[in-house]
């Protein structure tokens, strides 16, 4: 079974927009993978005129918000950086203990979504613009902010379309549903951790690779 990977289009966001954007994207992805009985809940973005759908699973909401908080904390310590949030779906397989790890279960990732964010801080980014219009710096900032917000909304729309297209194009890799839970498959949300460098997510990826081995071995 292949591990399908989807790199979503990069979004340029401000710190205050992170939560809205990540909630929208993560819930949209999970909704496609929640093949249990779902009572969809329409949710309007706070900052954008976009309505996305949640599964209505409280645990999922909590987990997503938790991860978003972690990510925001990391962003505060690493401002103006590009980063990724990874949403992975996996299967749990029993595996013989190898010489390296004594784990008896392994995770077989069959789908990974990379949400690419470039977090910017307009206060530091916008100085140059403001200096050019000393008469009405506030108005210019507002205009820039609103146009940036509009372009982000458009980009977020595109990301959601991208998710829908990906989900529709690739269905063969989805494992069989073996439970009746709302979210049919175990999932994992990975964010850059504070202890890591700016490319700290590599550590998590490496760890996962060591744990699971090559996907083709486990098909």
């Amino acid at each position, binding site marked *: 079974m292949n591990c399908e990977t989807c790199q979503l289009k990069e979004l340029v966001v401000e710190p205050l927009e992170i939560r809205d954007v990540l909630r929208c994207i993560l819930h*949209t992805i999970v*909704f*496609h993978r*929640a*093949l*249990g*009985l*779902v*009572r*969809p809940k*329409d949710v309007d973005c706070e900052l954008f*005129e*976009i*309505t*996305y*759908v949640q599964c209505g699973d409280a645990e999922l909401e909590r987990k997503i918000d938790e991860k978003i908080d972690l990510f925001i904390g990391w962003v505060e310590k690493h401002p103006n950086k590009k980063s990724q949030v990874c949403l992975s779906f996996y299967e749990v397989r029993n595996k013989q203990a190898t010489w390296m790890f004594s784990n008896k279960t392994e995770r077989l990732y069959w789908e990974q979504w990379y949400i690419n964010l470039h977090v910017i801080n307009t206060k530091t980014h916008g100085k140059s613009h403001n200096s050019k219009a000393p008469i009405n710096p506030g108005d210019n900032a507002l205009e820039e902010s609103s146009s940036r917000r509009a372009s982000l909304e458009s980009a977020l*729309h595109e990301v*959601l*379309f991208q998710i*829908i297209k990906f*989900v*529709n*194009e690739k*269905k*063969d890799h*989805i494992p*069989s*549903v073996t439970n009746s839970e709302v979210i049919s498959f175990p999932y994992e949300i990975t964010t850059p951790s504070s202890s890591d460098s700016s490319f700290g997510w590599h550590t998590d990826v490496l760890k996962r690779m060591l744990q699971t081995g090559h996907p083709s071995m486990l098909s």
Partner: protein
Amino acid sequence: MASSPCNSYSEPPIIEQVITEFFAKSLHIILESRSPFVSSRNYSLDHFASSPSSSSSSSSSRPRDKWFNLALRGCPAALENFDLWRQSNLEPLVVDVLLVRQSSTMDMTRLSPGRCLLRNPSGKDKFPMSPRQDELGTRSEKIIERWIVQYESRKNSNFGKEMYLGSRKSSGVSHHSSEIPTLYKKTYKRTTVMLRSLYLFVRLLPAYKLFRELNSSGRIRPLSLSHRINFFIEPFTQAEDAEMNQFSFVPIDTPCGRLCLCVSYLPILEDVSSEPSTPLSTQFIMDYVGSPTTDPFKRFQSLPSAGLARRHSWSNDHGGMPSGSPSPSPTYSDSQAVHYNPTVHLPPHHLHDQPRSAISIPRNALAARKKNTSFEDYLSSFPFSAASSPFTPTHFYGGHLPNSLLRSGSAPVSIPSSRHGRNCGLLDQALPPSSSKPTRPGYSSQTDLLRAQNTSASRTSSPEGKLQTKKDPLSLGDFQTGISSAKAFSFGKDEAGTLPGLKCSSTCIPLSRSSSRLSLLDGFDDSEFDYPFADDEDTTESCNRLELSEGKDQVSLNLETRGLVPVPRSPDAVVGALVRMLNTAPPLRQDLSNSVRSSQVFRDESWIPRIQHKEDMEAEVEKSESPVSSSGITASGLPKPRTTADALAELRSYKEMKELLVKQGGSQSSDDNCKDKSADRDSS
């Protein structure tokens, strides 16, 4: 099951069922986000799940909403309708989402309801989408989305050849019966994922934003959304095609074919917020659910305005212009065949901002009548089948309403029974032409409507005329019933239901019945609307039953005593009931919750002494007859200061009642003595 299920190019039954349900679920998802009447928030999943659905899904043990593990709300009627008219899975399902623009210069009261049409499956008969031009004015429609759901059989399309020749790993030419469960699971899973995508996708298109704006706005707009369901694909014009963007979901392979879903949509829509709009008065909102407009008889009165079907139109239109004039107009001209129900005479736009109920039923009825298609009526009535009252009456109305009914009159309807006429007349009388201090915003509109009716020359039976021409010993009972009815219909849900006078009047007088409905703002008893026209007959019957019942309440007693129901009763019983009423009536209060009782008591106390001096007052009564003002209660339900004219009118009515008692009774003296005693008791 055959060893090779695709030998006959027909899917295995279980796959066939998946295909059927896929069509239904797709339609549900699309309509839920495009048609407000479909997008019900009042239906519980349990209700939906418990409603049996027709066609193949009915045989499934799985409730329809649980198919594909996507539990949606509402709209079982639309799906049932779909099941009825859909002949086979080989027919494509084409859902056109229309943006309807109404001209602002048209006569609002003449707009007809109903823009949801289901074209004849054969495609031969195309029902006109628009009602007659002379009645509607300018109305333009534009397809902003076209959803096409279709099943391509391997036999019937080039796709079949591809299946044979292609190297698709997920499908094969033939499948053994042992593979069917696996195929079923695979197909079901893929279909589930596709429908998840569809559910999200419909919310990303521009039409969804328009839908939300029109659905949530409390303003009357010239734009509205409608939809049209076809079972054939009508090609776009070149111009239309050039404007549209297309998106196709990846088809899902089935053992003998594939499921396809695609959409053509306009990427840029008109900005609804830039359109001129009229703010809806909150008074309209207040009354809608349970208002007289939801009453079948009231609905008659409000039929002419297509704008009623705004946001909550189960005719699939919402957000459009109000077809009703802001104030009741003499367009309610002919109500001959309809029970008069003053509460019906609400201004059309009174119904606009109401939850998906009866607003557009009049419009739908009009449209259906014009189009002469019972199927359309059936279709347009469907979304309310699970909702509540409006559905059934509309279904009735849509196919059978004459023009006169649809332009319901403002004056009291000439009800076959003279009693009813009297009731109505007195009811009109009970409501003064001008409203004052409406308790709820909506009622001022009702009062306006009544005023229009009262002043309308469309009917000879004006309230005054009725009062004058139908002098009879109705008086007390009628008056009280009218008062209680007026109060009821001017009350909100918390109040009207507690009015004792409503109990009888709800059975005998359509107004009261509808008033009781008026009191139920958040949903009403469906049973009340099951037999909308049955009220015409049932009212008489119910009154007859009332006659036989032994003084169940004061109003019923009054009906009997005033001879409304000519059932012989002993005067003693009548007087006894009257005494009971007087004794149990609470003291006069100005607050609404007790206003009816208090007004009754007030009147009782006021006229009882006057009855004793009836000879003195008769002259005054004859001199100043002011039937409309005699009620002392405005449509809003607030008791206004009584005038002499009011008192004299009351006295006259009680006098008539007394005369009746005397005629029926025994000796006058025993009656007078009883009344004296009761007067003393009350005054003490």
